[in-house]
């Protein structure tokens, strides 16, 4: 597996949506770790939601090597890139950024064939229209992970072969990990 | 064809070896403990439900009712009732409620306790059909121990 290749391809993919300023991604690459870690300083003004792009983050501190944010319709292509590199899917999950009125879908990829390499791909979708294409075509194991994410966040994975409740009872009508969930 | 016969032979041998092992074990002494008649001594670190430590000097507990155990508890199973009493500095513990049905024996209350007033007990013979039986008042329990 060629790490640099994967990084290059993911970078290209992430910047596809915003071709007008390709330097931004490069700038974010250096500035973002500090920006993230120095979150306290900016407490007064909540930080802007992150722009799409690729960050190479500090592995020792964060536990991942590469952090890519892509547009929702690019997750399948991102999955294809890491699949071609022989990586495996560890998990799919979501995060509810209720203040930004957005949901984030997070894909964790890892390389199991040798030296450790972890890539996290994330995509943000609006909360009230939570649709994102499924990656089950690429990684069959995403099936259950996506169903679980649907359980907890109500995210609709378009094209999923069997988007039913997996862990929650089949007749429940709530999504417990949404931040506005108030118990049932 | 030779493989056919050697397979049968080696297979039969493995079965006989297995039989001899179980037959040998048959003559060994049982390792189980006949519970109601015999029972084990709990190790010093065994975690039973918490209890108040009796202070050998005063014959009472060391709790200062600060409520750190209650705040640190992940399962909200500790409730402390204390009151101001005349002539005594600070608050006085009147009731130490422990709902053992919710306790996960993590030990955070004991770690949080500044005056080291609580410890794990060695109680393990606990069984009941009613969950109210596991709502303890540790202060009462301490007094009954006297």
């Amino acid at each position: 597996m060629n790490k640099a290749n994967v990084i290059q391809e993911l970078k290209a993919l992430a910047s596809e949506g915003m071709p007008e300023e390709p330097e931004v991604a490069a700038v974010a690459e250096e500035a973002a770790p500090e920006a993230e870690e120095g979150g306290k300083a900016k407490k007064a003004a909540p930080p802007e939601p992150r722009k799409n792009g690729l960050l190479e983050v500090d592995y020792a501190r964060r536990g991942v090597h590469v952090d890519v944010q892509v547009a929702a319709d690019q997750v399948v292509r991102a999955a294809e890139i890491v699949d071609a590199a022989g990586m495996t899917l560890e998990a799919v999950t979501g995060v509810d950024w209720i203040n930004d009125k957005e949901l984030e879908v997070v894909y964790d990829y890892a390389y199991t064939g040798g030296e450790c390499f972890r890539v996290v791909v994330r995509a943000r979708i609006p909360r009230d229209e939570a649709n994102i294409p499924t990656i089950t075509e690429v990684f069959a194991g995403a099936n259950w992970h996506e169903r679980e994410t649907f359980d907890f966040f109500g995210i609709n994975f378009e094209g999923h072969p069997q988007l039913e409740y997996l862990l929650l009872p089949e007749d429940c009508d709530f999504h417990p990990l949404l931040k506005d969930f108030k118990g049932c | 064809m030779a493989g056919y016969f050697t397979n049968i032979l080696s297979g039969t041998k493995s079965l006989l070896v297995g039989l001899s092992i179980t037959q040998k074990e048959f003559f060994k002494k049982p390792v189980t403990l006949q519970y109601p008649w015999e029972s084990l001594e709990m190790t010093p670190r065994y975690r039973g439900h918490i209890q108040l430590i009796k202070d050998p000097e005063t014959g009472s507990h060391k709790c200062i009712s600060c409520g750190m155990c209650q705040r640190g508890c992940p399962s909200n199973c500790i409730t402390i009732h204390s009151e101001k009493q005349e002539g005594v500095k600070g608050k006085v513990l009147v009731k130490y409620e422990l709902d053992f049905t919710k306790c996960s024996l993590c030990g955070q209350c004991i770690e949080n306790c500044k005056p080291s007033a609580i410890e794990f007990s060695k109680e393990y013979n606990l069984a009941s059909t009613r969950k109210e039986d596991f709502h303890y008042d540790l202060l009462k329990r301490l007094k009954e121990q006297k």
Partner: protein
Amino acid sequence: MSSQALSQNNERFEVNLGPQHPATHGVLRVKLLMDGEYIVDAEPVLGYIHRMHELMGENRTWAQFLPNMGRLDYLSALSYNLGYVELVEKMAGIEVPERAEYIRVITTEMNRISSHLLWFGAFVLDLGGFTPLLYAFTDREEILDLLESVTGARLTYCYYRFGGCYNDVEDEFLSGCLAFIKRLRARMPMYHNLVTKNVILRQRLERVGPVSAEMCRKYGATGPVLRGSGVNYDVRKNEPYSIYPELDFDVPVYHEGDSMARYMVRMDEIEQCMRIIEQAIAKIPSGPVMAEKVPKMIKPEPGDYYHAVEAARGTFSIRAVSDGKNQAYRMKLRSPTFSNLSLFQEASKGMLLADALALMGSLDLVIPEIDR
């Protein structure tokens, strides 16, 4: 009856394997579509003991979430404890004293042996052999006694703390571990003679339930399942944490990908665990078991944190999102058997019922960890 009703499909019937069934070791339900004894489709149905640990993680402080780790995989709870405390230490930048690291490794590996021993017994029980289960339990019981003398619990441990361990271990524990290893070493040939070499067991496991490395990759299977398919991947080696880089051990890998390979990986892993423990006991330094500066209230800097450890069943990883408060904003627990089981539906197609159950046993399922 029309001729259509007499067609082949009419022979198929559905069987509910579980939620209460001797082979599912808990409350897993598998919806089987059978054609005689052959499985046409097997769909696992999860969630019977779902407890929403991830939501609890968002509602409790970092320290308060610790006891939950013992309730995920009750058979190797210490690996999960380890994964979580290491994550929080990474977030808060806590340095752990060396002695504590050694104690953590010794107890985690003891726990891994106990987990593999129980799996061994339960697996042979699935195959119809009752006695090895109780032999394995006799050995496992000694591990539990040893761990109880240190942690105070027998199964749902809550022993590690951010920055160290709850208490120090005595020399009796260390010598007890060595004595146990000596005993288990002497017992291993007995297990191999009684079970591994048994012709009936070999017939039931060899070439049964093959799982290819590619299938493991697509489904994200890890741990002994992956190593039984010929992939040399162990988080302890590939992504070292704690003091594992200082210890010398091998990662057993088998290339057949059948149930026997997974069986052999676990049996060999027991031996490797013993090697690790011996080395760790020989090297253990003296000193404190708790870091001196552990903040009372842990408030990690905002952002994502990820940490993976090798649990007895595969890669257990946690993704925590912090927003700078003393509670997690999001706590994702990635449990290994969830992914391992997800390949069962594809892998079991066309298998005989008995073989499919052998395959399921060889995946080493712990349901509370799948359902979380």
